């Protein structure tokens, strides 16, 4: 198991390194003038020259990249537009010349909102997806199965920027059943936190549960016919207990992997959901950085999101290896 963990970690680090290089090349080399893009349309030529020097744009691209990487590992000193020196601490993802703040700091401010949103949505996704998948598989081919399949297909086809507003209009503005979506730190007032996030959790969980429900249905159906499950049933174990004990473990591998992908995608794809529900998380921050052409902030947000994807996919792989010895032993 230890060698598997080590190998998987190294692989994840390699991917992250390549992702950072690609992001760097894409955003620092592609725009016609990165200094102008980083500083903004209202900067005068003197300020742009200061940014150009601070970003090290007069040096070769490779040097710029290695300095950026060194900043991520050890932190670095950066000059702001007015020439004042600022220390950008260890995971330094660059400096936002618009916000006059290190990008990592700005991201950290917005992260709790996105984490809350994702955690709750994942819980809803898991309950809803597994529930419908399990019931569908048990009632395979009957009316309930077809009804649930239709339900999940609608979930897979509806867009969050439509359903989210519709739900807000109906549940918040028309009937007042739920409070307006908002973020309260759970350490201050847990009830207000859960109340304010409930609607986003439900909508986001439902929309994303469709793929999970479909996969869990087909996985469960497949494992139900495996011989070890049939043996357990033949030996007199009840239907539900047999499925819970044997089927679910056998079917779990691909589901865990999908869950990892969904978690990464939810964290990385919070742009739309946060815009729809007016939550000020990392996604909203990234969208504002794009529209305000805040280049370093955009790169930082993209890298953070990529980290989440890589991290959760790797975690899912580890969980699968732990569940299924065939994988960690290299088959």
């Amino acid at each position, binding site marked *: 198991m230890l060698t598997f963990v080590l190998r998987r970690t190294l692989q994840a680090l390699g991917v992250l390194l390549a992702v950072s290089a690609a992001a760097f090349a894409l955003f620092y080399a592609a725009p016609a003038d990165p200094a102008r893009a980083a500083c903004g349309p209202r900067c005068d030529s003197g300020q742009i020259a200061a940014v150009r020097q601070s970003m090290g744009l007069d040096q070769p691209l490779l040097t710029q990249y290695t300095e950026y990487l060194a900043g991520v590992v050890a932190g670095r000193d950066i000059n702001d537009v007015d020439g004042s020196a600022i220390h950008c601490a260890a995971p330094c993802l660059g400096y936002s010349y618009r916000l006059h703040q290190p990008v990592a700091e700005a991201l950290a401010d917005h992260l709790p909102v996105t984490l809350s949103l994702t955690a709750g949505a994942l819980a809803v996704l898991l309950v809803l997806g597994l529930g419908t998948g399990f019931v569908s598989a048990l009632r395979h081919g009957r009316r309930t199965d077809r009804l649930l399949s239709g339900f999940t297909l609608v979930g897979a086809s509806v867009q969050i*920027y439509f359903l989210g507003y519709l739900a807000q209009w109906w549940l918040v503005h028309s009937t007042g059943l739920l409070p307006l979506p908002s973020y309260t730190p759970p350490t201050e007032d847990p009830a207000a936190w859960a109340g304010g996030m409930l609607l986003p959790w439900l909508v986001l969980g439902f929309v994303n549960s469709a793929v999970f429900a479909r996969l869990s249905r087909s996985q469960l159906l497949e494992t139900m016919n495996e011989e070890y499950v049939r043996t357990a049933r033949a030996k007199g174990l009840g239907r539900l207990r047999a499925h819970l004990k044997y089927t679910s473990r056998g079917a779990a591998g691909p589901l865990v992997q999908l869950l990892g992908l969904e978690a990464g995608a939810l964290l*990385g794809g919070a742009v739309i959901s946060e815009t729809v529900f007016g939550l000020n998380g990392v996604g909203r921050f990234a969208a504002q950085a794009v529209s305000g052409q805040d280049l370093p902030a955009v790169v930082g947000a993209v890298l953070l999101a990529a980290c989440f*994807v890589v991290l959760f996919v790797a975690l899912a792989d580890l969980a699968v290896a732990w569940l299924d010895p065939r994988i960690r032993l290299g088959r």
Partner: protein
Amino acid sequence: MAALDTVAVTGPVPGPAEPSLLRRVVHDRVGAAALAVVLLFLLLALAAPLIAALYGKNPVEHYGQNTPGLLSDGGVPMLPNGGISGEFWFGLEPGLGRDVLTQLLYGIRTSLLIAFAAAGVTTALGVLAGVAVGYLGGIADRLFGFLANVLLAFPTLLLLLAISPVIQSRLVDPNAAEPDWMQFLVLVLVFSAFGWIPLALSLRATVRSLRERDFVQSARAQGASRFHVVVRELLPNVRSQLLVHATMAVPAFVASEAALSFLGVGVTEPVPDWGRMISRGSEVFRSDPTYLVFPGVALLLFVLAFNLLGDAVRDALDPRRAR
């Protein structure tokens, strides 16, 4: 099971007794309905100018502002439910006062043009990469695996959001007005850059297993060129996978395009677009959700129909299903 698989997959030419794909899709009631809705949308897109002419409106004119009595001073339609009337069947856009029905009709064209182009490009790229890498194996295969891992680690929507302005700044002179086709081109490029990977990955796996099959081995033993093996032996056997991918890719790209336009980096004014309509609708939905509901429901129907059609195609092509 294995025997069934072999029979169904190795036959490169369908036997004479096998019913056509279309017939098999239509045989399923849901598939038939989905196909009908998809065709209806295509027809509406093609006939948009004709319908607009008969109906007497166009998607760009500000009817509400030019004709007094349609919009209030605040830009809200005077009639209830978004100003639906015998004159404006689906109501008026709040603020500018454009006709909703023609905006929706022309919006189909925007979505479909981009989605079809992106689906075509990604399918072609996916086939090229997947078949080549799967057939060659070795170092090319390793490199591709790593590349796919890297590209898949990027958060798709955020990247699309971030990269569209960058590409735009490269292709378009900032001082000149951007032509419509350039916007379309940028979006298709951005979607194509990442959309080909899933297809390539699944084709790679298929081709890898096909490569070892008897019919491929015997073709090679008889001295067939690589080109022959790929084009005549391998490609016919991944046809169904391609078709399913292409059908499923269209609704995915329609949704992504609408999402980008919703966030304000997709198609810009005055080209009609569903995502931008929803974005405008989201500003006024608290008092009257009509302008949000029309493009939202249209998008839902459209994506749902395409997804159902994709399911039906997949089922019809699945050799394990009893026909």
